[in-house]
């Protein structure tokens, strides 16, 4: 912990840090590349839609003496359609037959019971009519749309529209990547996947919101100082919440990993596996995007504001001045907050704004000595 704790402390103080904002084009590039790959994968390979979306039947049979390939033959005979047979960790088998309706699948079940010599009552059957999957998918799209609209509105109110836009972009980014990975790897898309995907929405935003919260706090009185530009402060806030972001992601991923392990290892396939797989991919993408995409994007948008442009000009001017005096002041970049402004330009300001100011005071000298 001590090392991590120190790391946290140094990140907090800005002694170390990665300049996310400055390198943003690199990360935009990476994201664009992945997104293009994802879309290409989606276009060329398409999604492997599960039984639930195209109609069909999934039978789960307990352990039998019949081999998987034999069971496949039986199932194909009984159904007259292609069947996919998977062996499960428990020794049973999972037989999927697509393109049959619910009435037909009853017969298949009976036939299978006979062929595999198991009691029909011991066969688990999941029969899905074709329109059901469509309905689930439609509902999911509908939910996605409503959620996005609500969230953008909420973020625009709670923060500001630029952050809402950035969060929105990050969200689309996460979903595209997750869906793209599904297309590329060929994982089967089931209602479980959809659940996972929809949860990512919440989670990805959750993460983004925490970073934005810190950003909002730190840039509260940004125009009252002339030391730092918006981008620099944005970068600082990413770095200072980095420890939390990492912790959050790890803590969120751990239970999902547990699910994935159990779902994939013990049950073979099914709901648990599907949910956790899409969650796993999506959570990772979500953590990445809130740091590398969302915040730099906000900075980009913000820097377009006349106010911020003016600020940047002032900051640069001031720096140019001080460079004359002291060339090294520049590498303080993320080192200090914007506190060393004219002694409390706004005396009436209370609370949080005051805190960075004092914090900086304590640090002004040591950092000066460092160089």
């Amino acid at each position, binding site marked *: *912990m001590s090392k991590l704790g120190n790391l946290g402390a*140094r990140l907090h103080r800005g002694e170390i840090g990665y300049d996310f904002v400055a390198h943003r084009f690199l990360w935009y590039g990476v994201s664009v590349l992945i997104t293009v790959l994802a879309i290409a994968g989606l276009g060329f390979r398409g999604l492997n839609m599960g039984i639930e979306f195209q109609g069909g039947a999934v039978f789960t049979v307990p352990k039998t003496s019949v081999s998987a390939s034999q069971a496949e033959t039986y199932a194909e005979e009984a159904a007259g359609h292609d069947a996919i047979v998977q062996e499960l960790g428990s020794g049973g088998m999972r037989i999927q037959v697509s393109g049959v309706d619910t009435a037909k699948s009853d017969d298949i079940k009976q036939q299978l019971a006979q062929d595999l010599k198991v009691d029909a009552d011991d066969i688990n059957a999941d029969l899905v009519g074709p329109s059901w999957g469509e*309905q689930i998918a439609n509902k999911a799209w509908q939910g996605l749309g409503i959620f996005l609209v609500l969230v953008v509105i909420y973020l625009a109110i709670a923060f500001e529209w630029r952050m809402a836009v950035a969060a929105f972009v990050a969200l689309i980014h996460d979903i595209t990547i997750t869906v793209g990975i599904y297309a590329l790897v060929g994982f089967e898309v089931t209602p*479980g996947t959809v659940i996972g995907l929809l949860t990512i929405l919440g989670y990805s935003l959750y993460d983004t919101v925490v970073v934005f919260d810190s950003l909002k706090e730190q840039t509260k009185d940004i125009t009252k100082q002339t030391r730092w530009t918006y981008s620099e402060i944005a970068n600082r806030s990413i770095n200072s919440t980095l420890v939390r972001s990492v912790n959050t992601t790890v803590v969120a991923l751990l239970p999902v990993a547990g699910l994935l392990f159990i779902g994939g290892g013990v049950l073979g396939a099914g709901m648990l596996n599907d949910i956790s797989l899409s969650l796993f991919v999506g959570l990772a993408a979500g953590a990445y995007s809130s740091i590398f995409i969302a915040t730099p994007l906000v900075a980009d948008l913000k820097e377009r504001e006349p106010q911020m442009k003016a600020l940047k000009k002032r900051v640069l001017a001031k720096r140019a001045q001080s460079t004359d005096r002291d060339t090294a002041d520049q590498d303080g970049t993320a080192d200090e907050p914007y506190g060393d402004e004219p002694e409390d330009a706004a005396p009436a300001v209370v609370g949080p704004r005051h805190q960075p100011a004092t914090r900086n005071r304590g640090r002004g000298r040591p950092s000066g000595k460092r160089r």
Partner: protein
Amino acid sequence: MARPSARPSGAGRPEREYEKVAAPKKGRSASAQSRPGRALVLMLIAVVALTGGMFASGHHTPRLGIDLAGGTSITLTAVTEPGQANAINPTNMDTAVEIMERRVNGLGVSEAEVQTQGDRNIIVNVPKGTDSEQAREQVGTTAKLYFRPVVATEVSGTDASASPSAGSSAAASPSPSASADESAADEEASSSPSDAASPSASATSQGRAVTEALKADPTPSDSAATSADASASPSASASASESAGSGEADAQLQAQYAALDCTKADQRSEAGSGAKPADSTVACGQNAQGQWQKYVLGPAEVDGTDVDKAEAVFDTQSAAGWKVTMDFTSKGADKFAAITGKLAQNQTPQNQFAIVLDNEVVSDPYVNQSITGGNAEISGSFTQEEAQGLANMLSYGALPLSFKESSVTTVTAALGGEQLEAGLIAGAIGLALVVIYLLVYYRGLSLIALASLLISAALTYVIMSLLGPAIGFALNLPAVCGAIVAIGITADSFIVYFERVRDEVREGRSLRPAVERGWPRARRTILVSDFVSFLAAAVLFVVSVGKVQGFAFTLGLTTLLDVVVVFFFTKPLLTLLARTKFFGGGHKWSGLDPKRLGARPPLRRTRRPAVHVDPKEA
């Protein structure tokens, strides 16, 4: 308010700063801070009360869904029929649920549940151990409502001493529809006096076991009408329509009728099944006394789609109590006038028509004159519920709602158990991993996180158990997943807070002010992010169908609980513990050791200028 507890911590600066931060938000933060014990006690009381409630209610475990307990789950989707797009509405869906429930539970299934989902789906869950095939047949078929003339009827079972009730009740019931119209709120108050038939209110209790069914006696006598007003099924001569069906079919029907014992559930469900509307058939029904009565019924003359609407109304005028009014479509009105005209000439029981829903006679009113004009009312001594039930059925039969099986999931008890186990193991593994991570990273602080997680888990469990009987919540696999995913969200709230506190410590504050200073900011972050998470869950819950809903529900529930736990447990607990030597003193295992956190000595004290600011503010 904040001051008293901040002051003892000494150092002038931190205290003042804290004071400023907390001051704008006096309400909650201050009270939580000054009386952490109270919040903890409150929380404890809530937990104990809920747990007590759980044990008192006798539901110690959450109700398990079909996929965990085993059984069959059938999803039915209402099909829109051309030109009837509006037929799928909540009222109709509720009626359909009611009728399906009646049908499924008629199979002798206990605890089958039928509920709507989304705007057009009905889920039927049949627990393991019942004949799922039969259940599927029952719920899958579209309800069909017919008006059939009664050819013969009698009480099925020996205990029924057939006593013709004849016209004794007749006097009370007929009422001109003109009077009914105003109360029934139909716009087209028809002037034509259509008249009321007095039905036998359908009762609920079932006839007891019979030793021997009465053999068909040619002149059917009907319901044991001890109370004149209640049952109104008289007897009489053959109706015209019935005489048509002659010969072989007729004989067969007679034989069926003779053999039919309506007190037996299996025979009941068999009776008349598969009969075409144009054929004569046999059917069962219950009379006002709850006795089963069997019928020979003529071909359907009017069918359910001919009924435009039916309503239960309270007759204030003639003090006849609850009655049911029906409006027919124009086509239906003609047919109805014709059949009632014919029936009215007959004698009891053949002046009765039977309202047959799914081959069960739900009502058998008699008529004494042709009912023209397109509306009619059925009166009798209905209770409000009975009248509404009958009106529902009449309306429902009039609707072209038919259902299609969207999915059928059969889970054996073995697989259900396996999945439950797997879910629990996954949860345990996930929890253990999180705990280990927190322990390594936060050391002593993780004990607080752990306690909070446990409280959260306990609350979730108890509330889920309570919600089972309360709102029919059933824990299914996606719900288990939701709970597991929620571990992360819950733990994150602690991380947000702990990191804040540690940041404060790093700036050289001692722990107690750090805990208080970190809170308002952590609180905002937690609320904002939990809100987003809750929003996602709520939207998912509202728009989704199928398994997604269970997931969304748990996620939303746990997010709410997270806020409750952080506010009323984690924060007060941390405040309390900050007073202890172990934490407050920054023990190296506490996770708050200033040295390990890389805290800087509070040099700021030497900075005078900052202090000058304070007086201005104060």
